């Protein structure tokens, strides 16, 4: 049931047609215990529907990365309920979450996190390799995805031969090669200059528009946040009311 990298293109059997892709109900995340406990998220209620492009903003330490880790099933909440595609993720163990991630969620990191010794092509192949896709199929799929992000010419270069913008394109190709429902990106432009950053955001926007992939990014850059259809503002582990098209940015 979990096999095949096209899995997430099909609607989940348990999902009602009207249910949003992501539903957070009273989610809290507390790091540490006792006196050293840090509340990173304090009761977040939120939903994100399919094909949305959402930007999470807010001061440093407000809980944005914690939020991304949770919706990406990299982390589990201390309390509350998180439904992804109608699946109650609280019922999943580490392997269950990994199975969900591998087919449904793509990750892009601020510092790219490519495998250093591997070529761009091998990096993009990697998620398919873990899915057990045969060599030729995954090679073709990876090459096609590198073409989408405009890196056909640099397929065989290792990350150290690529610019920051190019590395982030490889990372995006790696995230999208499994055709996920959700792409999450934690400050994807944070390590790039503004021109390159704008190009990367342009690329994400294009993918969101053309493929319909749901995208959630964290950013500190207002000009990047402005590109998103919806902005979620985090303050001290709380979500201020979601705003559409920068309609209510700095107010509450």
């Amino acid at each position, binding site marked *: *049931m*979990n*096999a095949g990298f096209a899995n997430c293109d099909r609607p989940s059997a348990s999902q009602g047609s009207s249910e949003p892709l992501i539903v957070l109900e009273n989610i809290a995340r507390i790091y540490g215990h006792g006196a050293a406990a840090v509340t990173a998220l304090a009761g977040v209620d939120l939903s994100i529907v399919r094909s949305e492009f959402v930007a999470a903003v807010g001061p440093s330490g407000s809980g944005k990365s914690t939020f991304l*880790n949770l919706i*990406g099933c*990299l*982390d589990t909440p201390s309390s509350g309920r998180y439904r992804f595609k109608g699946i109650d993720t609280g019922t999943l163990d*580490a*392997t269950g979450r*990994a*199975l969900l*991630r*591998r*087919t449904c969620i*793509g*990750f892009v*990191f601020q510092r790219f*996190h490519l*495998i250093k*010794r*591997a070529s761009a092509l091998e990096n993009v192949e*990697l*998620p*398919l*390799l*873990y*899915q*057990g896709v*045969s060599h030729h199929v995954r090679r073709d799929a990876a090459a096609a995805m590198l073409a989408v992000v405009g890196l056909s010419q640099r397929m065989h270069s290792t990350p150290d031969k690529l610019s920051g913008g190019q590395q982030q394109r490889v990372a995006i190709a*790696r*995230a999208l090669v*499994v055709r996920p429902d959700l792409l999450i990106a934690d400050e994807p432009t944070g390590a790039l200059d503004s021109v390159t950053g704008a190009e990367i955001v342009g690329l994400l926007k294009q993918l969101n528009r053309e493929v319909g992939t749901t995208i959630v990014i964290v950013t500190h850059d207002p000009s990047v946040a402005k590109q998103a259809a919806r902005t979620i503002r985090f303050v001290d582990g709380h979500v201020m009311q979601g705003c559409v098209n920068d309609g209510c940015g700095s107010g509450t």
Partner: protein
Amino acid sequence: MTVVVQAHDILRLAVSGLRRNAFRSMLAALGIAIGVGAMVAVVTIGRGSSAKVGEQLDQLGAQLLALRVGQDARGGQGAQIEAKPLTYADVEAVRQFRSELQAIAPVASQSVRVASRQANWVAAVTGADNDFLVAKKWRLVKGRAFSDREMRSGSNVCIIGATVHERLFGGDVAVGETIRVKTVSCEVIGVLGRRGQSGLSQDDDNTVIMPLANYQRRVLGSRDIQSIVVLVRQGIDTSLMKNRLEELMRERRRIDEGQEDNFHVLEMRQVADAMAETSRTLTALLTAVAAISVLVGGIGIMNIMLASVADRTSEIGVRLAIGALPRQILAQVLAEAVFLAAAGGLAGIVVGLGLAAVARLWLQIPLVVDPAVVLLSLAASAGIGMLFGYLPAARAAQLDPAEAIRRE
């Protein structure tokens, strides 16, 4: 459907993981290589020396018994309790077992200086008859054995071993030449084939054999017989013959019930068995020591794999994020450890066999390469990798992805 990553993909990941730090990987494998090398060398040399003992037993005769005066030196008492020598009457008495014995050879022997015109040398000079040649399976490469007339009359003739031939004649023609044994001149009538060093006796080739009567009269100066060497016929149990000879001698030497023997019967088969046993014990002991060093090598691998996993925490976190299952991470790290250990084991096998090959020349033993030993060493190495790789692999698989990625 379960998702299966092809084994070769996992192996490829493992190899690229190891190449991240090739030098450290090699060091990790070195411990196993040394341990396995020592183990393979010890076992192979042990097999070789056992084979050598067997070979020599075949050569010298598994059917050989030697009746000697005095107690068995191997018994530990050592003290030569006044043991009167054997006599011709004893020899005649032994001949009653003629139907069970193929050869009965009375012998006296002593280290004596021998000389040719060119050189002189100390050799074991033995007084014996042609039965001695039969019993000891001596083969003449030149000349002939003693004639009946020479035996009876006690002519001054002798047969020399390969070492004496080499020392006194430089390997040149010896038959027809005269050598001096102590003060006695005698003509060389035969040269024995080379037998080589053996674990069962000293240099057998350093020998001069003369007719017994002649030896007794001219060299020894008495009619004493030191031992009777007998060759038991094929199919007859040597231990049984040993018992019968002992019984006979106790009677002849009037040794009462409960009294210590002042003679002994040496059974070549038993000597060889004892030697083989010693060699087996030694081999087992050294193998155990080598096995411990293989275990230590395994601990080395665990150590290096733990460090390697710690180094790669962030990378492992990323792999978990983009689609690796915990068990796939486990498989990769385990494969790395097994690969390292097996590579070390393979190197160790090559080194060990190389050592055994060198030892073969030095110890003059055959090289017995047992495929079972090779396969077992390889399997044991892989097993060690599996055993000691498990902890690091489980650690890697249990990493919390969100935590791991943050770690740089």
